[in-house]
């Protein structure tokens, strides 16, 4: 009994017992990371290294040529790449901001306000966690067509804003805010809107960061919208363009460009996660479904 050394979870310092964990995890991590390292290096390989036989994972003389070619390729097509970048930025910013506002508002109501139908709405949203968007592509297309949203930014933005996972996580997080705090504010005469803005929002920054990450991941690499709901070339987004390019240059020379295109899509995601990871993990601790 006296020998209790504390649990093995989240140890403060290195012990020999952790070696066997490393022994299993490290090889696995290396296998997982090889494709990413390979693509990363591929994007910076000059032509002779792309053609080198046998193929090497690492790059020895890095160059920006692949990225340059990527931009050049767009000059020969009718629409400049900057147009796709602009579309992607507009759509991504709108989706991230609007989904933060909408899901925190809805989560606040579901967590702290009393109204009829509250539990039913929560049940419905929990069930919607299982929602597989690709299954309803066709009816979604019909809805978007009927509402006249084809070929404009609304088709890019609005369908992505209803994110059941985001609402769920924010709601679980707001549940942790003590009711007493809110009661006190009501006694001081605060309105719901004031409570939302002055109490809830400052206290749930980690959940907001999490919503931002999830929304960003959903929208930044999204290609279905451009594929299905947008016919006008000049309204399509960057991932669509990069994908077209990747399919058009399906040879060894094109591989460098494809890898560069992958990096443009992947790096912002990775950086955002690395910067906001503490908030993300903080939110995830409350993610349980009871």
């Amino acid at each position, binding site marked *: 009994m006296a020998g209790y050394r504390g649990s*093995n979870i989240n140890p403060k310092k290195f012990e020999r017992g952790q070696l066997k964990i490393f022994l299993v995890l490290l090889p696995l991590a290396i296998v997982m990371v090889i494709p990413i390292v390979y693509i990363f290096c591929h994007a910076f390989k000059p032509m002779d290294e792309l053609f080198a036989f046998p193929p090497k994972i690492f790059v020895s003389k890095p160059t920006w040529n692949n990225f340059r070619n990527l931009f050049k390729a767009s000059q020969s097509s009718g629409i400049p790449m900057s147009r796709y970048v602009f579309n992607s930025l507009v759509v991504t910013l709108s989706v991230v901001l609007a989904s933060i506002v909408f899901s925190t508002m809805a989560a606040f109501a579901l967590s702290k306000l009393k109204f009829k139908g509250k539990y039913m709405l929560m049940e419905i949203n929990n069930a919607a966690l299982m929602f597989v968007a690709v*299954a*309803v592509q066709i009816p979604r297309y019909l809805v978007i067509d009927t509402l006249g949203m084809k070929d404009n930014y609304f088709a890019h933005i609005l369908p992505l*804003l*209803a994110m059941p996972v985001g609402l769920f996580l924010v709601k679980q997080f707001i549940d942790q805010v003590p009711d007493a705090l809110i009661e006190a504010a009501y006694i001081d005469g605060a309105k719901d809107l004031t409570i*939302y803005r002055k109490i809830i929002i400052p206290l749930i920054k980690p959940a907001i960061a999490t919503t931002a990450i999830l929304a960003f991941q959903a929208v930044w690499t999204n290609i279905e919208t451009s594929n299905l709901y947008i016919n006008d070339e000049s309204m399509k987004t960057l991932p669509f363009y990069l994908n077209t390019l990747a399919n058009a240059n399906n040879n060894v020379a094109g591989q460098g460009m494809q890898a560069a295109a992958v990096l443009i899509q992947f790096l912002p995601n*990775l950086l955002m996660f690395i910067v906001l990871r503490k908030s993300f993990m903080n939110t995830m601790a409350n993610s*349980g479904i009871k």
Partner: protein
Amino acid sequence: MAGKSTKRKKNSIARHENGNKSAYGFLAPYLILFSIFIIIPIIIAIGLSFTSFNTIQAPTFKAFLNYVNLITQDEIFMQYVLPNTIKYALIVGPGGYILAFLIAWALSQLTSVPRTILAIIFYSPSMTGAVAMAVVWKIIFSGDQMGLINNWLMNLGVIDEPIVWLTSAQFLLPIMIIVALWSSMGVGFLAMLAGILNADEELYEAAAIDGVKNRFQEMIYITVPTMKPQMLFGAVMAIVNAFQNGVIGVQLSGANPTPGYAGQLIVNHIEDYGFIRYEMGYAAAVSVILLLIVMVFSKVFGRLFSEN
């Protein structure tokens, strides 16, 4: 003055206690979008599944004909799509999920710095997105001798000449499964990691007194039971991801239908009928079946984590 303000305060609390109109205001934007883009499409899918609809003429009511055809006439569905989907979903869903839990648990046994670095490595594949993911693996599984995998296997003497991996009926599905497993350490994985790290220290102390001796016993007797809610969230995410990523076969092989229907999953079958053949009624019936399968999978997991 004082009395008046007390009365007003009471009113505001009372209003807060019984049905609150402003709550609907807060909910409205989300609820409207949720209805338009999730609820209504599901209802339309169910409705259309009982019709024949080519997007030009109005739908005609066909009762259960689509479902009957799906089960009795659609040989491709029964011979390829359904078995492929079940094989894929069983390995990638539960398999990816167990892998995610074990890795999360192993990570929790490490100190903060190596844990964070490794967690980012494990999580990063899920961030690449379906299209970029396909490009990455297309290059690695490239069909000539320049392909990384072909080159390695030829050096090891396993194969004599390069294999055209992505258009081969034999290898497409296994490769899809590998790629899906590779990218399965997503949100659910992080949720489980956070759940394990957040566990109550006292429980572990009590368990040690009760005779729990090693890491493994600790995991089975304390970690798993205390983090069931996160486990369920992780499970739902794993299943949804498995089905959502089903498009990868078409991305990898560059064709729908995939070569010899080897990588054809339900998601691709829906696209094939909906957007290639414009048989929307039939595609809708397949969608409804897909939603049902996801629901059944999730319910089974729900049972698993609520009973004991």
